[in-house]
Every structure is written in C-alpha cells, then in structure tokens.
C-alpha cells in the first residue's frame, strides 16, 4: 500500500516537471514581452507595453495578419466541407477498400512537410501557376483535410444511424435528412474541425515558405523579423498574443467537441 503510494507520488512529481518542460518555452514569450529591455535576458528590468505598441504601428504585420486570416478561413471552410463528405462516406456506406482510401487521404500527415512543399512548388512552376496566397491555401488544404476528416469521422461514428433512417422512412430525401438530422448532430464536430484547421493553417510555416509569392503570411512575417535583433521584443509580444488566442480557440474547440460527445452518448441511452 505504502509502495503504490510512493510510486504514485514519483509519477505525479514527474508529471508536474514534464508540464513545466512543456510550458516553460511558451511562458517565455509573455514574460519577456512586458520586459523593458531590448535584450531577452535576466534580470527583468521593468514593466512596459511599448513592444505591443510597436506592433500596432507595423504595416507589414497588419498585411500579414490579414493574409493569414484570408488563407486560414478559406482553408478551414474547404477542408471541413471535404471532411464532412469523406466522413459521411466512410461511416455510412459499406465500401470495399475504404480503409485503403482513408489512408491515402491521411498520407500528408506522415510525409515530411518540406517534401509536400517542394513537390507543390515544382508542380505550380511546371504548370506556370504564379505563387500567391491561393497556392499557400492549396498546400494548407492538403495538410488540414486529414485532420478535419479524423475529427468528423469520430463524431459521425458517435451517433446512432437510426436517426437518419427514421427521417428517411418519414419521407425526407437525402439532402433534407442531412440538413435537418445529420448536420445538427455533427455540428460540434464541424465547429471543432473548423477551429482546428484554421489554427493549423494560421500557424503553418514550412509550406507557406515555399508556396507564398510576394504576400507574406503571419509566420513568414515573423520569420523575416527574427533576423533583426531590435525586432525581437515585439516578436515576443506578437508571440504572446498568438499563444493566448490559439489557447482560447483550441480550448473552445475541445470543449465544444467533448461536450458534444457527451450529448451524443446521452441521446443514445
């Protein structure tokens, strides 16, 4: 009894240390973003908002932010729609080789991003397609669709097929069955998929690096700023804002998705 307790304690201590390891680099960003010094070193010198104020003046940053929002929202919408189609197909219809087809769609998750990036770059170049925010979006779409599909498959598997069958038996056609039965039930999954894919696209660097033309996305803008030591504190400030927003969005996505799953289980009982 005593031995299991001591083992539990060792593991709990380990878990806490691990969390510190996970969060320390994230905490550095806000900590030094309020520090009144050009250099990112201890001791902290004083509290300031000036690095945040500097951000507000940067035209390049604002353009990059708008570009990232454009790409992120389009990619989130498209990949979620594709994810809904694909998830409905594999969970509702018995198909031969569906496992093989799913793994084919999942491939972008297991090949290094740099290889996806250069392959697309070469394809656009050979095809004479000019690099732009659209080409970045295409790259992000490849990366986001598998995630969207995974989220939506688990949501579709979680609810009882007989709701849809009941609607069809009562005379609804397939289209209205989807909109009036399926869609409301999978809505938490849809929202989660949208937020998740938006976040992935918003943060993505490697594909954007190869596929962006003259319009920089936010990560590309950050990358360009890292070369200038005097810009580093405001990069930290920007990082702190991004970390906070991402955290809120991901928390919301998780809560909506998990809350939704509970609802699904209850309605099954």
């Amino acid at each position, binding site marked *: 009894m005593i031995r299991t307790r001591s083992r*539990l304690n060792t593991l709990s201590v380990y878990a806490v240390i691990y969390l510190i390891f996970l969060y320390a680099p*994230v905490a550095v960003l806000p900590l030094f973003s309020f520090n009144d010094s050009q250099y990112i070193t201890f001791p902290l010198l004083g509290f300031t908002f000036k690095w945040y104020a500097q951000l507000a003046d940067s035209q390049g940053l604002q353009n990059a932010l708008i570009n990232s929002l454009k790409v992120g929202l389009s990619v989130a919408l498209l990949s979620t729609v594709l994810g809904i189609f694909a998830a409905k197909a594999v969970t509702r*219809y018995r198909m031969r080789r569906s496992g093989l087809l799913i793994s*084919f769609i999942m491939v972008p998750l297991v090949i290094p991003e740099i290889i996806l990036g250069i392959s697309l770059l070469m394809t656009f170049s050979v095809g004479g397609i000019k690099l732009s925010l659209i080409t970045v979006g295409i790259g992000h779409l490849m990366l986001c669709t598998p995630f969207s599909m995974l989220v939506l498959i688990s949501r579709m598997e979680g609810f009882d097929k007989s709701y849809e069958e009941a609607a069809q038996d009562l005379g609804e056609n397939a289209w209205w069955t989807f909109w009036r039965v399926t869609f409301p039930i999978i809505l938490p999954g849809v929202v989660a998929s949208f937020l998740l894919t938006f976040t992935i696209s918003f943060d993505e*660097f490697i594909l954007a*690096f190869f596929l962006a033309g003259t319009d920089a996305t936010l990560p590309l803008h950050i990358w360009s700023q890292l070369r200038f030591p005097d810009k580093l504190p405001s*990069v930290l400030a920007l990082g702190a804002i991004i*970390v906070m927003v991402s955290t809120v969005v991901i*928390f919301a996505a998780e809560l909506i998705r998990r809350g939704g799953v509970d609802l699904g289980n209850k309605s099954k009982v």
Partner: protein
Amino acid sequence: MPSAASEQSLVSRFQLRFRRSEAMRGYTLLSPTLTIVLLGLLFPLMILVTLSFWKQEYVDLIQTFTLTNYADFFRKKIYYLILYRSIRISLLVMLVTVLLAYPLAYFIAFHVKRNKMIWIILVTIPFWTSYLLRVFSWKVILGYNGVINSGLMSLGIIAEPLEFLLYNPIAVVITLAHAWAAVAILPIYVSLEKIDRSLIEASRDLGESAFMTFIRVTLPLSLPGVIAASLLVFIPTVGDYVTPSLVGGTRGIMIGNIIQSMFGKALNWPLGAALSIISMITVTLVVCLLLGATQLFRKKVA
C-alpha cells in the same frame, strides 16, 4: 418510340441501381476529397520524381533524362554524411520523446482518476501554439545571452555563460522533443487506456511483481501506441529545417536545410528533388527496420 423508351428505362434502372448501391454513393461522396488528394499530393509527387531526373543549368531546367543528381549524392560525401546525421538525430529525438512521454501517458491512463481530459488538453495546448515561435523560444532560452545563462549568472551560480547550450545537435534534440511531445503522448495514452485492467490484476494475483507485470503485460500491450508515437515523431523530424537552422548551428545542419537551400541560394531543383526522394526511401527503410525489430522484441517477450 421504343428506343427512347428503352433508353429511358436504362437510365432509370441505372439511377435505381446507383441509389441502391451503398458503395457507389459512398465513392461519390468520397470523390471530391480523393480528387483533391490526387491533384494536390499524388500528382506533385510524380512531378517530384520526374524533376529528380532532370538537370539544372543556371535558371533553366534541362528536360532530358539523367542520373546525375543521384550520382551526385553518392559521389559527394557531404550529402551522404548529412543524411546520416539527420537520421541519427531524428532517431535520438524519437527515443527521447517517447521515453519522456511514456511515464506521463502512463500517469494519465492509470493514476488520474477524474478529469483525464483536462490533462490531455493541458498536454496538447503547447502543441497547437505556433511551431516557429516555440522553436524561437528555445533559441532565446538556450542562447549565449539567453534565459538560462543570464538567469544562472544573475543568481551567481555561474560566472561565464555556458557555450554548449545552443548551436549543436543536443539543442536540436531538446527542441524537437518539446515540439513533438503531444504527438508521442496521445497514441501511447490511447493504447494504455485500452488495456483490460483485469489482465494486470491477474498477473499480480499470480505472483508477478509490479515491475515484471509492467514488463510482461502492460508494456507489450501498449506497444502499438509506442510504435505509432515513434513513427509519428521520427518521420516528420527527418525533414525539419526550421529547428536546425534556428538552434542547430553548423554542427546541427540536417538534410532539410540542404534540400531547402537547393530551392533557395544553391538553386538546383533537380538535385533537391533527388535528395528528397533518397531521404524518403531511407526513412522508409529505417521504419521497416524499426518495425522488424519490434516484431522480434514482441516474440521474445511473449
């Protein structure tokens, strides 16, 4: 008109069949996604293979079949050495990440009784915050005038900054082990969570010690999660170039940096393509070796 009538019935019969056939409707629903993946992944990969057999002269691509790029890889030692180093660093990253992640996944699966989800969310949040910024943050932490050095100096523990922290393969390993932590924890957690608790109790009741129960029951049963975690960490890290270029220094350069430079300063797309393909093949071979080794381990334990 009989022919039109029969044609119509053929159409309606086809429609009927189409509606009835589950598989057909499934494939139709799946087709937009499949088309996108075909156009955005398979086709570009074919272009990659094609270009790897071309040649670059200044800014022009010479479209005649040649093996020069592949020959270059074997002729010039540098590419071979850097690929070897990348594989070694990535294997080390995989090992460190999985070894660090396993106890935490074990803790969440077996010792956290309530609010497991809170733990899972806690573990995943850093993963979803900008990759570039996390890597940059490590550069700031490990740097010569960085957080650790200045912190230790202002505490009076060291007099001179430690130089061995940044710009070496170890910095790359630490940064990547941090960046890919969530990817390793989740599959291991899922496989531990799936284990039937009565199997563990049975082993204890039959007199095995807690340690031997772990080695002979828990560990083998969680192996699928460990394998998934290892591959999900190993494969993408081989191609990473952000981490090596920010924290790796010259001794931490990886194949991703070389490939990236072929599309930038060095301007040799075909060689870049060939290096990518050689890297992918090497990664696949290493993955096969790893899977073979775990099979062997599984047989031995069982």
